């Protein structure tokens, strides 16, 4: 057994975000929104965003259900993109993707999201972690 890998996956912070998701209230009539769904496992993320005139994300809300990894990532993502410009948010997404694929990634941009690094040891779970990011991209396109 490799309990360390499991401990890296189910870190306390991750489980805390799963059980107590941040930014979980729904924004009514948002400027941007999207629904992400993974039919394979039923993970779902609904995302709403409001940006100001300078394209800075002022409000973000998400609701969803699914595994700990998908929901904790969504919660962590909302924290990391709030107050960032759309361009910055998409740059974070790109760094996150690199981290999941084991490429060199910019930890300064990722900040708290680095905690999800352990997911990449579980290849079938990576898509759980990418769901909220593709939903973010959909909401902005």
């Amino acid at each position, binding site marked *: 057994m490799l309990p360390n890998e499991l401990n890296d996956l*189910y870190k306390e912070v991750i489980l805390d975000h799963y*059980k107590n998701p941040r930014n979980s209230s729904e924004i009514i009539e948002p400027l941007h929104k999207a629904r992400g769904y993974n039919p394979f*496992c*039923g993970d*779902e993320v609904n995302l709403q965003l409001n940006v100001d005139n300078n394209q800075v994300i002022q409000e973000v809300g998400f609701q969803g259900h699914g*595994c700990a990894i998908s929901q904790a990532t969504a919660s962590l993502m909302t924290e990391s993109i709030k107050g960032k410009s759309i361009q910055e948010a998409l740059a974070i997404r790109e760094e996150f993707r690199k981290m999941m694929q084991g490429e060199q990634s910019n930890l300064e941009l990722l900040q708290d999201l680095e905690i999800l690094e352990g997911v990449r040891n579980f290849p079938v779970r990576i898509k759980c972690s990418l769901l909220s990011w593709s939903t973010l991209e959909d909401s902005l396109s």
Partner: protein
Amino acid sequence: MMDINSIKKDFPILKKQINNTPLVYLDNAASTQKPNQVIQSIVESYELYNSNVHRGVHTTSMEATERYELAREKVAKFINAKSNDEIVYVRNTTEALNLVAYAWGLNNIDSTENIVVTELEHHSNLVPWQFVSQKTNCELRIIPTTPEGTLDLSSIDKLITESTKIVSIVHVSNLTGTINPIDEIIKKAKSVGAKVCIDAAQSVPHMPVDVQQIDCDFLAFSGHKMLAPPGIGILYGKTEILEKLEPFLRGGEMVKEVTYSSATWNDIPTKFEAGTPNFIDPIGLGVAIDYLSNIGMENVRQHEKDLIKYALDRLTEIPGLEIIGPTNPEMRGGVATFSMNDIHPHDIGTILDQRGIAIRTGHHCGMPYHKKLGLSATSRASFYLYNDYNDIDKLVDGMNDVINYFK
């Protein structure tokens, strides 16, 4: 009685280590492991008998053909078909059911008539009938389920009526393990003159099934769920029906005489085996059937009944765990499906995998039923003849580990 320890020794994969612990394989409803006997028969087929069937006058082709047809005979005996010609080789259950839907369904049903399925269908016995219903504008009727996950037959007289052309139902559910009362449903179907198609993917591998006794018109199952390789499935059809049936796929082998403008069809079952078939995997299926027959299907069923009883007892000890499907082992195959408050099946699957325990998580190709339950996914441990109580104990220990992570 069955000696599980010696059975386990026949399955090389059960010696595999995952994260330094032995594999505990509990995903048998999805696919089963192969004993040495089956693996060796495949090797031998390639080493000694590899040649296209029904084509050559040379020795190896004739030997290959003989082995291919001998396997068909074994299948026919195993399910007690009247004749070997009632056994059509296909890829899997899904292809068998599509064959029935395309070749029989599209040609025999009109817009005033209907098809009956159940809420417990695997997608493979639902989606093809949705297609027939859309193409012919006929109604698709669905037998509902009780909260316990058994079929609710209280309105059967309103569902199976004079205008019903075919009743296509799952024998044992891969979602709930429910053993459906097919005798009662078939009797009703026959009384209105409807044809009956049985999805036996989870029954033929696990219990005695006699097609003459149940009196179905079609029956479908997959080799890979009964110790055989994944490239072979079976469609059983009654002779008189197969003879009248239009072909499903057209081309080489399935024809008798061909001109530039038309063709006539070969005899059954060849009429349904267009092109070069998978002539290796049926050999493995024949050997798998020998293996199962040596043990005895009554014994296989009894063993799984003991396992499911033990599994349901032990799993219900776990706080927050809810069993999906009937709790009476008499009504249930070796399929233990469950959900846990607040812990998603994928997280359960990942943590169990770290202990070498392989279970299935997701919707198990039954999205509509999961939607009805209000769940997007469940966890499922499913058993076969090489599983024992110890495997179930490991599953329960693993579940306690899961709870520790999430508490």
